[in-house]
């Protein structure tokens, strides 16, 4: 923001010339990057298919209605499995995330130079790898099935929960911890009385939030063989049973909406 005197009149501009120039340059660079990237994508695209897409979409939509309602009888078990993968995976992720976050938070870690970097690396690796890729790996290791799904969701959740949790631990009010320490409490007691009560609401919120995300994630794990409703979806798509596909999609929407509602209710009750 700047004011210049120009022929006796005060001229107000939002930014001075230098800042204005930087802003324009940034916009220009960003636009160039965007256009370049899009160009590369478009080079790899067969545009004939794209032009054909609306017809294809109409065709597909026509074949998907009405949903094959009778198929729902076979979806009970896959839904139950999906739910279990999400829930048990979340539980596993949280249980491991607690010590990891304790080690990663600057104010509670046993050693800033040794333990903290390890904990941070665990968090980053767990977070950078999508649960579907975790599932891909685990299916080759422990074999196809629900177990691979639970482990995949669990491993992916460690990083997410631990990151949010250690940020919550770093944000606590140190004065309260100091006050507990001043009473002569031992290390574990300082944690239990000074830190745990302060991060408990954040912890509960994070767990429920992750559970909600995990429900959505676990619907696709079946595509790589890790159990749940994704297996049925894969089967229906490969056999071109589009009426079954549409039913599965409806079931997934319903599950996700219900889980979102539950998670919102629980979070509301806690906080």
């Amino acid at each position: 923001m700047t004011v210049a005197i120009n022929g006796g009149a005060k001229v107000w501009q939002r930014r001075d010339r230098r800042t204005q120039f930087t802003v324009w340059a940034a916009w220009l660079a960003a636009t160039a990057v965007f256009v370049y990237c899009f160009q590369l994508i478009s080079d790899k695209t067969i545009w004939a298919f794209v032009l054909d897409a609306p017809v294809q979409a109409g065709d597909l939509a026509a074949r998907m209605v009405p949903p094959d309602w009778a198929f729902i009888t076979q979806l009970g078990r896959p839904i139950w499995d999906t739910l279990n993968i999400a829930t048990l995976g979340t539980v596993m992720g949280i249980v491991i995330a607690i010590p990891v976050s304790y080690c990663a938070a600057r104010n509670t870690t046993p050693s800033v130079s040794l333990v903290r970097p390890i904990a941070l690396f665990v968090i980053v690796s767990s977070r950078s790898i999508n649960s579907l890729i975790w599932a891909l790996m685990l299916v080759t290791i422990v074999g196809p099935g629900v177990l691979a799904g639970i482990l995949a969701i669990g491993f992916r959740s460690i990083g997410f929960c631990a990151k949010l949790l250690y940020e919550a631990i770093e944000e606590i009010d140190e004065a309260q911890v100091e006050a507990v320490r001043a009473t002569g409490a031992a290390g574990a007691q300082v944690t239990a009385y000074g830190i745990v009560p302060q991060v408990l609401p954040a912890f509960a919120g994070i767990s429920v939030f992750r559970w909600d995300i995990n429900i959505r994630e676990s619907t696709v794990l079946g595509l790589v063989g890790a159990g749940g409703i994704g297996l049925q979806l894969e089967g229906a798509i490969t056999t071109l049973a589009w009426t079954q596909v549409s039913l599965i999609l409806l079931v997934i929407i319903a599950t996700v909406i219900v889980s979102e509602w539950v998670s919102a209710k629980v979070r509301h009750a806690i906080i």
Partner: protein
Amino acid sequence: MPLTQWYRVELSEQPSPTRGEGASTTTAPAFALGRAMTLAVAAAPRRWKKPPLIKSARLRWGLGLGVAVYLALALGTTEVNWNRVWEGLPRGAQFITAFFPPDFTSRWGEIVDGILESIWMAVVSTVVGIALSIPVGIGAARNIAPAPVYYFCRGILAVSRSFQEVILAIFFVKLFGFGPLAGFLTLSFATIGFYGKLLAEDIEDMDPVQAEAVRATGASWLQWINFGVQPQVMPRMIGLGLYRLDINFRESAVVGIVGAGGIGATLNTAFDRYEFDSAAAILLIMIGIVMALEYLSGYLRRWVQ
């Protein structure tokens, strides 16, 4: 003030000499005597237990029992082929040893192509997704959108958020053919759901007084959005945009599994052929890029503010 508290104040304030109002001390003995007697009566040891989190005992036990039953059922119905797990463990060990050292060289060309494609997709889809999600997000904010618009936009957000990226990618691949365009469309659509919802929530949480003050100047609707709403939600939205770029990069790795371009296809092939050392290399590169993005976004956020 609760009744008991009020009562105490009344009782003690009258005869208290500490107020310095020259209160008569003659009333104090009688009062003190009465108080002392009440105390003597209440001198029996008082127990204390931490009050339970959930007040109703029935609900508390019911919830506990429900959780126990669910866990028993869930664990009981989880079918695990322990023989297969046992056989797989050496393969797991093999996978871990593949990280020391990972093999960057033998599939280097494919890896570079895949990673670059992932990055393009992430960048383009973040930009397009955010651009599209701004009108949707504004429309989905209850405090500024009329009801029909609100429900329509909320509907778009719900559909976009319900489906995992991979499901969307399957359909986009069906419609637009294999390649990064399908991945780009998938990620853009998913971005609308994520960013639009957060934008809508942020607008709903804004300070109505500031927005009202701008409206009171006679600003048009667009001016009002620009001066009253945008400054309030902007800082957080920039941070979230960078975060979404990070998510889109990570997701671009999985949409490749169903043929929508990016590094995922290369990774999938590596696993299929049990080339764990190449897979390890890809994973390490991804971890590196995510870390770099995180660092960059932290830096950019500071710069913007």
